[in-house]
């Protein structure tokens, strides 16, 4: 199967890449973390340091995968970029400006869908627009578009309890895209899905990325997923978490699942695994 790049298993992931970008397409934001340190209060007087001295620059429109062991501070870093956590030391910048709190240009997809259980899928997707004060007509038009784009059509009137896990995460993704973010942060977004669905979602995610080219930071536990999605894979390790490796992934886009059998992928996977093992051992 090695070299089977466009075989039967391969699906055009970035089929929208060449599609003309609309004038409204926001493009990506530039993220810069310099010497970021975050700690949490713990039992007693001590504080537990979650991440320490993290430097990370993400160029506009780039996709960066962050991988590392549990408790390695991956989610913490995402929350710093999302403006939900203030670093104790160091600085976090978006397009050169300090991140002082949640920003409409940045959107976070959580590990769980976190849908409002009493609202239909469509009204969940509309939620950020409601909060932002969009009028009804504008909301409805955007919801219709998003529902189509993420593949929720036909399920928009159902409440979350009536949706499959995959459909719920589609709704969460649509909601995250609602305000056309320039930065999309994903915290193990597909980890609750089965392996096949997950692969398909990753392909679709790249398709969505191809529409507006937001900057994407995705936290994952899966080495394969990290490689498939990322322009770079950043390995976090140790306690407190630090960047132990930052590997470019030389896979051409648009990417297809067939590329997962590429020699480049197995070499990258080998290297990532070595870094992970080392950081756990130390």
């Amino acid at each position, binding site marked *: 199967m090695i070299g089977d790049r466009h075989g039967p298993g391969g699906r055009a992931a970035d089929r929208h890449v060449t599609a003309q970008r609309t004038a409204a397409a926001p493009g990506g934001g530039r993220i810069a973390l310099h010497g970021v340190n975050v700690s949490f209060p713990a039992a007693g007087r001590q504080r537990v340091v979650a991440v320490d001295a993290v430097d990370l620059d993400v160029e506009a429109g780039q996709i960066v995968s962050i991988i590392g062991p549990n408790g390695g501070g991956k989610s913490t870093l995402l929350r710093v970029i999302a403006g939900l956590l203030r670093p104790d030391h160091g600085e976090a910048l978006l397009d050169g400006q300090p991140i002082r709190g949640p920003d409409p240009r940045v959107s976070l997809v*959580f590990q769980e869908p976190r849908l*409002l259980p009493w609202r239909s899928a469509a009204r969940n997707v509309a939620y950020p627009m409601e909060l932002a004060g969009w009028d009804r007509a504008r909301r409805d038009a955007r919801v219709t578009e998003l529902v189509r784009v993420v593949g929720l*059509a036909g399920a928009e*009137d*159902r409440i979350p309890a009536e949706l499959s896990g995959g459909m719920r995460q589609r709704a969460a993704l649509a909601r995250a895209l609602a305000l056309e973010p320039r930065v999309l942060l994903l915290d193990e977004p597909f980890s609750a899905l089965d392996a096949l669905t997950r692969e398909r979602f990753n392909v679709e995610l790249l398709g969505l990325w191809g529409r507006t080219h937001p900057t994407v930071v995705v936290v994952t536990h899966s080495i394969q997923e990290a490689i498939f999605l990322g322009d770079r894979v950043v390995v976090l390790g140790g306690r407190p978490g630090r960047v132990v490796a930052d590997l470019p992934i030389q896979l051409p886009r648009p990417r297809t699942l067939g590329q997962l059998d590429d020699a480049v992928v197995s070499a990258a996977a080998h290297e990532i695994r070595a870094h992970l093992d080392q950081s756990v051992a130390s």
Partner: protein
Amino acid sequence: MTANAARRPDRGLAPTGRRSQVMFGAAGLGLFLALWQAIVVVGGYPPFILPPPGAVMGRLVTGWADGTIAPHALRTLIEVALGFGVGAAAALVVGYLLARSAFVERLVSPYIVAAQATPILALAPILTLWFGPGLTSKVVICALIVFFPIAISTMVGIRSVDAGLLELGRSLRATRRQVLTTLEIPAALPSIFGGLRVGVTLAVVGAIVGEWAGADQGLGLLINLARGSLFDIPLLFATLVTIALLGVALYVVVVLVERLLLRAR
């Protein structure tokens, strides 16, 4: 259009369910009345101890027809409505503060619990002394008695709001007001209505207790009259039935409002 075919499951009663419910209800009522009649017959009780259901129903009808019960019932209804309204409004605010402020909880909760532990029966005469035998004392008693269950259920409901949803709201830069109206209230609504259901029935109890302690009108007063100067025991029972029906009717109103609001979320 398959989406519209996929209706939300059972929000409200299916038609078959409603019919069988009505049948069960009627059967239960029949059984209750039959049992009542049987006790009267078997026990051989005189009407001034336990009148048979037929006599009570008859007195209920004549009591409403000749205007004996209606003005008292209206007065009690007004007391309950005002007292419940005032008490519930205060309880919703205090319940929210209890849930969201540790300071308020530490400051206020001992007094709330202590007030709840004091029997309303003991407070009623004092409140009647302070506020007079008119409407005000009953409204105060009703408000006091409904306060506790509604405040506690509001507190529990607001505290139960999923922290993940609150973080979502924060990441979407929801204002305090938006968090309240789009997350906290909708999520706490079932719990709050649990308290309101209990509260509305207690409000009826509060009004009757208040009227017992001294009143110029009301169903509680009518009980006293029927038992005392009028010595009309069927009327006493007819008044009890009226009180029970009032409680059931108010409870049903609360349940209907609950359904309406849950659907509007």
